[in-house]
């Protein structure tokens, strides 16, 4: 396999990791003020993602860095072209991160209530816009012969892009619900568990529509099969949740997101950013790539350190595997 293909696969892997992990963080963030009726419940909700959300976000930073290193032209066209959506995503990520860390640092309920709303909104924005961005990447955007994006914000807000946004938004919401049902106890767990089915059914309709549309437009046989398996995994997740097998349900929703993203990348390959202006102008794994020398070095580094990262991040989840209990109030 060529190095450029390896790096396309690796970048896909990083995005899959990011969406599977940060996906439930976004879901939990959006659900925080809705599902948490009381202050102790909200604290418990945040504690489910507290130890891990920051490590999850690094998947994005590495995905961005890897794109810069392996496909500079892709990175440059994408980040300068999707300028305002990325700005909004950044604002969302900033506010959400600060909110999660700062919320509990003051005792006033007003302070906390405000942050809760901000965390929810700031989780909503990236959850929506990542889908818009990826739908547009796969479908193709206006790119000229100089590899420059020639559209604007409204070019991206087309029906297909918005359907992609709704898909990630709803998938992350379901993923967050399943995660909360897995990680909490008592009434909070029941509430999350009950919500999975109705939210999940809406999600299924939207996601199937989006993935079908994508695969009809640009899909291959493999990407279509992967999308179909993703749909099956989602059905499995909903059934497992009904049976209160929450571990299996979470596995199901994680596999769904992983395969859905994989399907998008498979439909994209060997392009990395197709041009809707003229297919000749499309950015591909070949014409957007770095030199073989750089890719070789990066491969060596990735081969050594990626398993290490997986190992210690996995360990973190093991350390914090217990369900979070709602604690009425801290003891003095």
């Amino acid at each position, binding site marked *: 396999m060529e190095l450029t293909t390896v790096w396309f696969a690796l970048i896909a892997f990083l995005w899959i990791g990011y969406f599977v992990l940060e996906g439930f963080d976004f879901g939990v963030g959006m659900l925080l003020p809705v599902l948490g009726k009381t202050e102790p419940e909200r604290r418990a909700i945040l504690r489910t993602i507290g*130890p891990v959300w920051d490590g999850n976000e690094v998947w994005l930073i590495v995905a961005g860095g890897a794109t810069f290193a392996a496909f500079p032209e892709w990175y440059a066209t994408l980040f300068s072209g999707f300028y305002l959506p990325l700005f909004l995503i950044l604002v969302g990520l900033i506010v959400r991160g600060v909110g999660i860390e700062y919320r509990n640092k003051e005792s006033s309920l007003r302070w906390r209530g405000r942050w809760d709303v901000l965390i929810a909104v700031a989780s909503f924005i990236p959850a929506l816009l990542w889908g818009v961005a990826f739908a547009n990447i796969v479908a193709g955007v206006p790119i000229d012969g100089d590899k420059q994006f020639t559209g604007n914000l409204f070019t991206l807000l087309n029906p297909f892009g918005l359907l992609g946004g709704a898909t990630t938004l709803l998938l992350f919401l379901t993923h967050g619900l399943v995660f909360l049902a897995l990680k909490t106890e008592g009434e909070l767990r029941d509430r999350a568990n009950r919500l999975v089915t109705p939210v999940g059914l809406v999600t299924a309709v939207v996601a199937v529509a989006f993935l079908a549309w994508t695969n009809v437009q640009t899909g291959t046989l493999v990407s279509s099969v992967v999308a179909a398996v993703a749909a099956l995994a989602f059905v499995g997740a909903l059934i497992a949740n009904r049976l209160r097998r929450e571990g299996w349900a979470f596995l199901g929703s994680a596999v769904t997101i992983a395969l859905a993203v994989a399907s998008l990348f498979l439909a994209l390959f060997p392009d990395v950013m197709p041009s809707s202006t003229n297919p000749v102008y499309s950015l591909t794994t070949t014409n957007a790539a770095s030199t073989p020398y750089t890719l070789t070095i990066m491969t060596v580094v990735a081969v050594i350190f990626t398993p290490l990262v997986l190992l210690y991040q996995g360990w973190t989840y093991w350390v914090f595997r217990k369900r979070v209990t709602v604690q009425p109030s801290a003891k003095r």
Partner: protein
Amino acid sequence: MLSRWQFGITTVYHFFFVPLTIGLAFTTAGFQTAWYRTGKEQYLRLTRFVGELFLINFALGIVTGIVQEFQFGMNWSSYSRFVGDIFGAPLAIEGLLAFFLESTFLGLWIFGWGRLSKGVHLTTIWVAAVGTAISAYIILAANSWMQHPVGYEVNQAAGRAELKDFLAVLTNVTALITFPHTIAAAFMTTGALLTGVALWRLVRRKGPDDGAFRATAKAGAVMLLVSGLLVAVTGDIQGKIMTDQQPMKMAAAEALWETEQPASFSLFTIGTLDGSQNVFSIRVPYVLSFLATGDFNGKVLGINDLQKIQEQKFGPGDYTPNTPVTYWTFRLMIGTGILAAAAALWFLFRMRKGRLPGRGTLAIAVALPFLPLAANSFAWMFTEIGRQPWIVFGLMTTATAVSPTSTTLEVLITLVGFTLLYGVLAVVMVGLMIRRVRAGLPEATADKGFEHEAEPELGFGY
């Protein structure tokens, strides 16, 4: 131009938190080690106290860091296309090697109290601290490549610079000297914060914890002085390397228009610094020669000569950075640094044999943490503005590096957006820090983590 403002503002802002994060990570690890070794409760409470300040900082450091990575593509896409083959790798490796370590192990540390064994828990904060240092080295290597590109070749056909020797990029002499300079500055900044905070507690909030704060104030002042010395030594070596690599920056730092041998150093100048008559200036002979070359009689090239040399090399153009800004940021960097060291020395003297500085010194104690912060900012402005008009010295100019597609309006929106958001967050963050300092050392037991800490019952009895 707007993109430059945006990168400048977001970078300087980001770098308020970076040095404190590095320094406080190691300080927290140090206190926790002391607790682990001695079992004294005082060290545990100091660990929690400093740890809180660290976490408040770290939260902003990390979220503003994402902006830094994204900006290269958003605002500087032509730069990214030209140097991506070289510049992208360090960013990716920084994430894979350092950011994963920092954030994962910090999560373990914050929530691991009572869940991990004491030894393992102590290890997590050390791993996170080492992560911050690794990250600093890699990103400084990337910046050093912009100051002094090595290990590359320009491929004219592909229209980009290509990596030829990655080891050369990682062992760039500029990076090797900038790293200790920056790390020492980080500890200087942290020392100043600890001294200022502890002194404020000692003078304004006398109480049972005076012993702990007294030790902290002294340790902070010593930390500031030792690292200050290191900053000076490494800075001096840097100056000589810089004169060698970017002579124009040194000339602009002195606003030296004509070549001199030996060259004098002006402490300050009243005037326009544009090469016309300076109104007034205090000059110390031979010093610039020494700073630039290590020889009191060394020859220092002036801006006019360097401009001619560069015109011959790179073709017609203006190769002179903004001289007044370069001149003053250089002096302010050194000046605020020296002032901080002087204040630390004086506080140490006033605290000898159990004495205490009077209430009148409170203002200085409060101002102290801001001095190295200011020095850091001036230092970055100096080294980045002094490199202009280049974005990569000798290879690419800043003017050609911006994204051709983003409109003025778009850049303006994000510039204003980031500035407002950062401003609000700064107020929130400083407010939280002050609350923590007012609250003093938290009650601490080894098994309760931070998630319980800000409960109404705890520590807000004022």
